[in-house]
């Protein structure tokens, strides 16, 4: 499995809530492409149109606080962003992200050292985040193999389906 993610940083502050990640006015659909068009709309109207495949969202503490809407990690994943790095995550978002196959990492030191637009590379398996723009490298606790398989499979349901086939 290719465990390296690469892209440029989109930097946000503390307590980014699920209402700004995907406002409730768009929750009358669960279509990923449509949710992606409104991703981060109420905190950064330019995100959805300018984000490139592989880009990484970098934020402060308590990212994803608020609602249990799985539409939030769905929107981020469908936007093309490859991961979220934050000081900490709200617990329901944390669960939902892995269930959806969106990798997320707690790396407080890295968050301090990253500015918007920096080129980042993340090795999920080894737990290394490189800021290529600034030439700095940070270590974080790698996600357990089970979670990595989950991400590789594209989420919990695909993971269950793949395991079912294997038995």
């Amino acid at each position: 499995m290719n465990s390296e993610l690469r892209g440029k940083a989109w930097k946000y502050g503390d307590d980014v809530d699920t209402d700004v990640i995907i406002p409730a006015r768009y929750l009358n659909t669960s279509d990923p492409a449509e949710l992606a068009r409104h991703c981060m709309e109420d905190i950064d109207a330019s995100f959805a149109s300018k984000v490139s495949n592989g880009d990484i969202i970098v934020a402060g503490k308590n990212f994803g606080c608020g609602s249990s809407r799985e539409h939030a990690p769905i929107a981020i994943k469908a936007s093309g962003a490859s991961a979220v790095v934050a000081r900490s995550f709200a617990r329901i978002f944390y669960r939902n992200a892995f269930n959806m196959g969106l990798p997320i990492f707690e790396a407080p030191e890295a968050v301090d050292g990253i500015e918007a637009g920096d080129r980042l590379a993340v090795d999920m398996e080894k737990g290394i985040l490189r800021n290529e723009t600034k030439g700095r490298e940070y270590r974080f606790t790698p996600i357990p193999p089970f979670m990595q398989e989950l991400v590789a499979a594209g989420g919990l349901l695909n993971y269950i389906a793949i395991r079912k086939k294997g038995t």
Partner: protein
Amino acid sequence: MAMTLTEKILARHAGRTSVSPGELILAKVDLALGNDVTSPIAIQAFRSLGVPEVFDRERVALVPDHFAPNKDIRSAEQVKMMREFAREYGIVNYFEVGRMGIEHVLLPDEGLVVPGDLVIGADSHTCTYGALCAFSTGVGSTDLAAAMVSGEVWLKVPDTLRIVLSGRPGKWVEGKDVILHIIGEIGVDGALYQAMEYAGDGIAHLPMAWRFTVSNMAIEAGAKNGIFPFDAATKRYADARAKRRYEVVAADPGARYAGELSVDLAALEPVVAFPHLPGNTKPLSQVGNVPVDQVVVGSCTNGRIEDLRGAAEVLRGRKVHDGVRMIVFPATQEIYLQAMREGLMEVFVTAGAAFSTPTCGPCLGGHMGILAKGERAIATTNRNFVGRMGHPESEVYLANPVVAAASAVLGRIGGPDEL
């Protein structure tokens, strides 16, 4: 091993004699819940797994409350998907418009959640049932789908933060003020991943309606759940409604807590949370002059009959300010009927307030009271994030129902003593 309330309920449901914080467990679910926003994704996931039936037709609850009565064609399609799923799989607890209510008020009132239960719901305010001495927590749609298949959920056993309530709350102070005060003290991630467990003599002064409000907003402190001990008030409430037998659970003496916070209820005054975080609180006396365009009384946080009584008492014989739209949402049909019988509906309508059918409506910026750019609301709801009730440049202030009602008359944020 001595366990906290949360640990004890989790251990029982995992078939274990004890559990410790940090452990991953697979636990049996007494009830799994979804609404019209979260169920469609869960239903698609459930169908993709190709299983013939849900784990228990009586232990899945589907409540269309967020955008229901349907606000547009797409919302109608989402509810239709739920309704058809409920029929196809024989889901007993599907609540149609006209018989429904806001899920977290409806399910305990219907006796579908009982003390000692383990409940998961694809809605973050599922933590509300902690008021009944149950463990309940919000999850996503995929977890709901998995629970509908297996009747189980994996959980990490949380640390417990003990919150000791003492004293008797003063006039106009309610459950909302207790929880807003706590969130203001510890912050919106002050109990991240933790269980909040209430203790102390002060609990006796909190009627069940207030306890539901306090448990409801545990998520606003980042907590997994917010749980009250079982006492005479819990017993009265549960015995009048429970549809299943229940076993009483109590925390063990000597249980280990990750931290403790003391709250002197007598020292509190009504609390208002300023935009754009529930933890951004001020005592009412320090709010200053904040004019409002809209007042909302309702939601899973404060849409109970006690909340409506409080607001109506303030409004009786008074008028909603010329510059204000006030909208009242009874949380369930039963509460709606009770408000009618008690003459509360007449008080609201005579005062110039709108009285709505139950819905989550404007609380999440869904419908029935959306704010325009630059508008400001005071609401008895639970979140005041950017854009929560409408335009990203609108503002929401959170307060209890009597403060909200007084503000409707004043045209600015204020308390009943100013009338």
